[in-house]
């Protein structure tokens, strides 16, 4: 499938460079997802695949093509051979568009980075014949594109229009998403996660409990990670507008310590809940970040 950058406004978020790198990779749901079309993901249902699942006794009405004749020859009973079904998945990107995402110290803001990430993933999973959807939220849901096999272009359109406008929180929008997405699927949360780890878990927990495969991309600018400010200045919170006078040199170390602790807490909690968590430094090239994540995930999936 080709993508015309001239026709689709959001296509600029699909970076050919990135695609060239990740083109041979797949984003496969780690857990079972619901789907109707044969796809890459494990389905909760048995179906046609090469993976043998179990035998069960024949009951009238079963397709006699699925009777294991070899077993019948040995046991003289009819057994039906059941196979794992591979399914296509609901795939939705949950993109945080709160004001804090509008921050970027070196040209590209976190939101732009997130949009590219979302665009690339959307394209990737669309190519896998998964249904793609998009949720943009700040303190509430801002845009919603329901997952559909035909919605990639819509999703890209919506991505194109997004601007950071108001302060964000995770709990309300994510709870709504959890309520709305009845079918299990893959949810990619792209956010800077400026909340308490416990609050984040509280917000993401419901998604996980519903059986969704949740992947979290934690976008942070290099400035947020390293805090390499020199001059004493007033620091203004992008979301609340509050100002605090800061002498960076005096508290950079403490700040970095806190950020590390935050990331560690997140990593710990997410892994405990089997949520994929990836910290993305927006100063690193997207292809590199995405490639390393996807290849790691693929490898881990195989091992499992």
């Amino acid at each position: 499938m080709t993508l015309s950058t001239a026709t689709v406004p959001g296509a600029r978020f699909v970076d050919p460079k990135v695609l060239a790198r990740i083109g041979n990779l797949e984003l496969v749901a780690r857990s079972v997802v619901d789907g109707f079309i044969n796809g890459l993901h494990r389905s909760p249902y048995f179906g046609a695949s090469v993976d043998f699942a179990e035998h069960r006794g024949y009951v009238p009405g079963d397709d006699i093509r699925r009777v294991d004749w070899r077993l019948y020859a040995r046991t003289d009973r009819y057994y039906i051979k059941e196979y794992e079904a591979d399914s296509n998945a609901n795939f939705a990107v949950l993109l945080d568009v709160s004001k804090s995402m509008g921050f970027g110290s070196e040209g590209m803001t976190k939101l732009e980075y997130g949009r590219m990430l979302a665009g690339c993933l959307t394209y990737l999973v669309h190519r896998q014949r998964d249904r793609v959807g998009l949720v943009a939220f700040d303190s509430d849901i801002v845009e919603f594109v329901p997952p559909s096999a035909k919605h990639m272009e819509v999703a890209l359109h919506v991505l194109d229009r997004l601007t950071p406008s108001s302060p964000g929180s995770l709990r309300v929008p994510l709870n709504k998403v959890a309520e709305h997405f009845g079918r299990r699927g893959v949810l990619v949360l792209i956010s800077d996660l400026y909340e308490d780890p416990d609050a984040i878990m509280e917000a993401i927990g419901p998604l996980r409990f519903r059986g969704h495969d949740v992947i979290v991309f934690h976008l942070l600018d290099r400035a947020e990670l390293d805090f390499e400010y020199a001059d004493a200045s007033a620091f203004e919170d992008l979301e609340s507008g509050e100002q605090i006078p800061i002498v960076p040199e005096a508290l950079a170390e403490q700040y970095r310590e806190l950020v590390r602790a935050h990331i560690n807490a997140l990593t710990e909690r997410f892994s405990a809940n089997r949520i994929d968590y990836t910290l993305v430094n927006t100063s690193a090239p997207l292809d590199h970040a995405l490639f390393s994540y996807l290849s790691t995930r693929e490898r881990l999936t195989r091992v499992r």
Partner: protein
Amino acid sequence: MSFLTPLFLIGLAGLAVPLVIHLIQRERKQVVQFPSLMFLRRIPYQSVQRRRIRHWLLLMMRLAALALIVLAFARPFFRGSDPALAASGGAREIVLLVDRSYSMGYGDRWTRALSAARSTVDDMSAADRASIVFFGSATDVVLRSTSDKARLHSALAGAQLSAGGTHYGPVLKLAGSILAESSLPRREVVLVSDFQRVGWCGADGVRLPDGAVLTPVPIGESETANLAVTPVSLERSTFSDQERVTVTAGVVNHGPAARDGVDMTLEIGGRAIQTMRVAVGPNASASASFAPVTLTGAEIRGSIRLADDAMPRDNAFHFMVSPGRPVRTALVDRTAGREALYLSRALSVGDAPRFVTTARPADGLTADDLQRTDVLILNDVQVPAALAERLGRFVERGGGLLIIAGQRGTWPQERAASVAALPGDMVDRTRGPAGRLVALEYGHTVFEPFRSPRSGDFSAARFYGYRALTPQADATVLARFDDGAPALVERRVGAGRVLVWASSLDIEWNDLPVKPVFLPFVHQMARYLAAYREPEPWLTVGSVLDPGRAAAGPADIRTVVTPSGERVALDPEGGDVVTLEEQGFYELREGATGAGPAATVAANVDLSESDLTPMDPREVVAAVSGSGAELAGNAGTVELTDASREATQRLWWYLLFAGALLLAAETLVSNRTMIR
């Protein structure tokens, strides 16, 4: 704490400057947009606090430095008691200065001064030591650093008023040196005086040692009334060949009330001659002239007396009137004075001194003439060797010789050692511009009266001819012509003086005799050659008398009789001087026994002392107190002035130093902050 210049405290408003800068600095700070202050807010309290502390420290340092500097400019001082005073205990070294100038004789001042001095001695503890110094125009250390009260009391009992004036400077300096030698912990100067304004002419660098305390004991009254005679003026005149002197005397009223009917009596030779009655206004003076007194051959004693008042010393004024001593000149020329018309005319004019001129031909000069001549003038005379030898001896003996070279004047070559210069060839200046006198030696006695501008113009005289002079090696050229040739050459030969004039002193070769400077010029030359001195009619108590010079002629003064009748024997070798300490007539006598007086000298008190205007004793205290010294409250509870308090405490210096130090520290701290 008080301030000497509190207006400078307005500068404290300058403290707002760093504050404003601080505020502006904070406002101007750029705003950094940051996604979330979630983490920063977790450490905000501490971080803001730390930042503030550092800035507060800088701010405080700046403010404190500024405040210190402003305070330093305001010159603070403490009014409280001085530490030196508070630290009582320890033995005292007391220098008791008692004023015995004659103004202390006013009323009962002297009695009160002595009793104040006695009470100071009585207040001494056993360990204290005291020195007693009486002072007037001279200082007299009677006792030096003793703790024996009996000796101190007897020294005070033997004290007498002097006739001198008051001079605080020397005695305070002496007191300072006595205190400086002392090893006792507390040092004090007690100054018993009437604190006359005239005795104080500034501290003159007098400073008591650090820690020394000056306690003034003012004796004077608030209201004083005093009459004093002023120095007389003597006007000489000649009336029918007799010299007469008119005495004019004055009286000064140093008091607030006008005085009518003040009698002034003129005494001549001890007898009252005439009494004049004058009226004097408050703080004013009046004068009167007495009838002329005809002078006889000898010098006479004169006195002016007023009726006694509270201070009798300045009511008498003594003087000597001596007949004028003429300068005897002998004018020698070829025609016995007929050629030297201008010269003889010039010498016939003059009162002080008179010139008595005798004219002699060159070959008619006798030994007797030379004996009776002070100044010998050779006008255009060819001097033979024999005469030159006699003249040489005359000069050696102390005579004055003026050689006017003129057209024909010569001096034998072999006797050149007796004169200043030898006249040589004539220089003709009739062609071309005439010669002028330039390069006058105005520092010399001859030309000294012409020194100041418009007091005689020698350059107006034209010189058409003169002789080229060859000055001796040790001669001084006093004047030169415009071509550099010497015009007037002076030389001292033995006890006498020789002047050589290159041109003539008539109108043959120049027009100097018709110029206004001619008369004073001739008089000056004659005075100088005669070594003439104006006789001094009186001296002042405190000055020094050289008996050898005081006598009119060459006399061997061996004894001086003071006004109180005391005989002072002088060193026969000469060179002894007598300090005049009493008011009245000093008689100088020849020989050891001294039959009659060879000369008499009148001594008067210093009349400036009769002005009893008092000064504030604090002025003296402030001027001479060393740092840390303060006034001890005594009879006169005299307070230190603020300025002197401040001057002794010198707090401003420490404040300024602390401010500078703080600024330096501030620089260091702020640098360190910036680097980190």
